[in-house]
């Protein structure tokens, strides 16, 4: 394995980790506020469809991004209404949202485009193209550092950089602002927050809607950047891998980045090599695909570093009368 191959694998790691990272941070906001969200997958899928459809119609990737965020926020609002206002089961609501997105995206795509539930391929400005950072071409010939800067750091879609910037932003919001303190408190002990005269419902809705925005960017990235258009079930379980990464990172932003890069790397390696030969032993590609889930179960089992979710997670808050 030479230097260039490693660079290529790392490059595709970054690309594949981006949607995971955005969805993972989305889940982070929601779950830190005490609202479990297994509907990340559905919100991402709905956003992927909406962004691809609008980007195709308008020819603008930015309009697509806005539509994707909008679609994802509608589903996030639905999740909020079901789990905050009507105090329903958050897990069941998440399951419903996943199916709703999986069904509606194909039904509407079939009606609008008649291409068997996909959108037409996006070209030109309807996609987020790769941007070249300053001096990337100039330093490309410098040994080692040059290719790293030109291939790995430069040359991604703007959404990749946005996703990477959201990591410190999330950390700052959650751990350095009053809003973040309250958000974390409402996920641990909503009664205390309520006693302090702060709206539990308001905070949770805010968290769920932020989750919607981030899932929307993740979905738009899938359809307008990673690929060129929407196809049925294109999120392909990424929402669940993001959920796994969230648990893996124990609900912390910087660890989420690490977990998503790790899972992205597994995906990139799995895409590149069908089977990996280690001496006489062959690691099948299916094992690589299952590895994120296996690792998450091990972490969940608490044998290697215990993952403890926010204490009030999954429980509707009922004001005492």
């Amino acid at each position, binding site marked *: 394995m030479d230097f260039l191959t490693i660079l290529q694998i790392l490059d595709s790691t970054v690309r594949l980790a981006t949607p995971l990272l955005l969805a993972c941070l989305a889940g982070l906001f929601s779950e830190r506020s005490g609202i479990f969200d297994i509907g990340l997958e559905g919100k991402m899928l709905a956003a992927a469809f909406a962004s691809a459809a609008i980007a195709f119609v308008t020819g603008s990737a930015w309009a697509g991004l806005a539509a994707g965020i909008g679609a994802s926020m509608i589903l996030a609002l639905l999740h909020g209404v079901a789990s905050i206002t009507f105090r*329903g089961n958050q897990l069941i609501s998440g399951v419903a949202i996943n199916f709703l997105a999986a069904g509606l995206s194909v039904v509407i795509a*079939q009606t609008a485009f008649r291409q068997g539930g996909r959108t037409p391929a996006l070209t030109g400005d309807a996609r987020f193209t790769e941007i070249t950072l300053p001096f990337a071409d100039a330093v490309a010939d410098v040994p080692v550092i040059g290719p790293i800067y030109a291939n790995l750091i430069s040359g991604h879609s703007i959404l990749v950089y946005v996703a990477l910037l959201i990591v410190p932003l999330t950390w700052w919001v959650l751990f350095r602002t009053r809003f973040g303190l309250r958000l974390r408190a409402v996920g641990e002990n909503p009664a205390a927050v309520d006693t302090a005269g702060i709206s539990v419902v308001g905070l949770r809705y805010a968290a769920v809607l932020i989750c919607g925005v981030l899932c929307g960017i993740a979905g738009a990235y899938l359809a307008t950047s990673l690929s060129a258009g929407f196809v049925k079930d294109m999120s392909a379980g990424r929402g669940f891998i993001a959920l796994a990464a969230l648990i893996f990172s124990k609900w912390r932003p910087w660890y989420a980045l690490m977990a998503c890069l790790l899972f992205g790397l597994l995906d990139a390696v799995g895409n590149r090599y069908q089977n990996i030969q280690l001496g006489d032993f062959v690691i099948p590609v299916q094992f690589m695909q299952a590895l994120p889930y296996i690792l998450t179960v091990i972490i*969940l089992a608490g044998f290697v570093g215990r993952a403890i979710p926010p204490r009030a997670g999954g429980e509707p808050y009922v004001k005492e009368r």
Partner: protein
Amino acid sequence: MDKMPKWADVILIPLISVILALLVSGLVVIFIGESPIEAMQIMIRGAFGNAYGWGYTLFYTTNFIFTGLAVAVAFHAKMFNIGGEGQAALGGLGVAIICLTIPWPHWSVALLAAVIGSAVFGAAWAAIPAYLQAKRGSHIVITTIMFNFIASALLVYLLVNVFRVPGSMAPETARFPEAVHLPNASQFAGFLGFRPSTPLNVSFFVAILACVFVWLLIWRTRLGYEIRAFGHSETAAVYAGIHPVKIVMVSMLISGGLAGMMAINGVMGEAERLVIDNVQGAGFVGIAVALMGRSHPVGVFLAALLFGALYQGGAELEFEMPAVSREMIVVIQALVILFTGALDNMVRMPMEAFFLARHRRQEAAAAAAAPNPKPDAAHTGAPAAQREE
């Protein structure tokens, strides 16, 4: 305590929820420019119009009864088994191993062995998440989701590398021997017009037996009582001497076993070989079925029939109305889960208010009807009114 009569809780609320789900589905059909009435007619005709439709409807129903019962049993212990998909896939593996490795003399013996084998494999796949929930407190929903993905990867690996017929490209097992062929509806109910190609087979009766089994288990055995007690209140159950680890393990093993048994219908009864993705989402439909059927076997049966009809009718719908994609079924399924599960309180709260108000009015009317109440009548009336608070 009871704000509503039992019939309202058991029948009225699920019915209203399902009607709401169907109304919203109708709006979706209008939105894509077709007539919902016509779509409904096509679906009903496609599902129940002839023996061909019935064969597929009841075939799907059989699948959904198994997965619905699986989710229902876990619900009684207040656990959400979202892993029916993976457990059913492993059940298929169990059926394939049993049918391919042992030369069975007769299908009936093979069926019995396949029922046990599929249940054991399904239960085994549920065992690890159950153990982690019971002993380590890992959330069962997350672990069962993860196990669905692991099961799918495992099955692809096994079908590609272990069970594939040498020389064949298709990732599937060899065809099961003729001896384990289950009689299909044309053989035991041919007089009803079922064709030899119908997928409906004797597994349907196994599914009905499973309904009876679950009813007996939950409402007529000590274990069932313990499961329900645990589901209502874990602390109270523990105080009453019920062992939480045992209940979590046993109810999840039964749940996984029921999900696994789905494979006798699809794998042994219809495909007669194990193929990739033999479950086709039935594990998830089980969630909608259990929610709609209020986790009661009779409700699960009726809900499974409705979803069986939706799946078969939906296939016909796509054929006759090309503008409506087959995914419309997934939308309806999602809306049923949403309204009967997540938005249950949206229907329940106004209904409770309605019945409470009606009850109060009746009492007020009863009090007004008696112009000069005797002291003892007033005496018995007062505590009753208090109880309603």
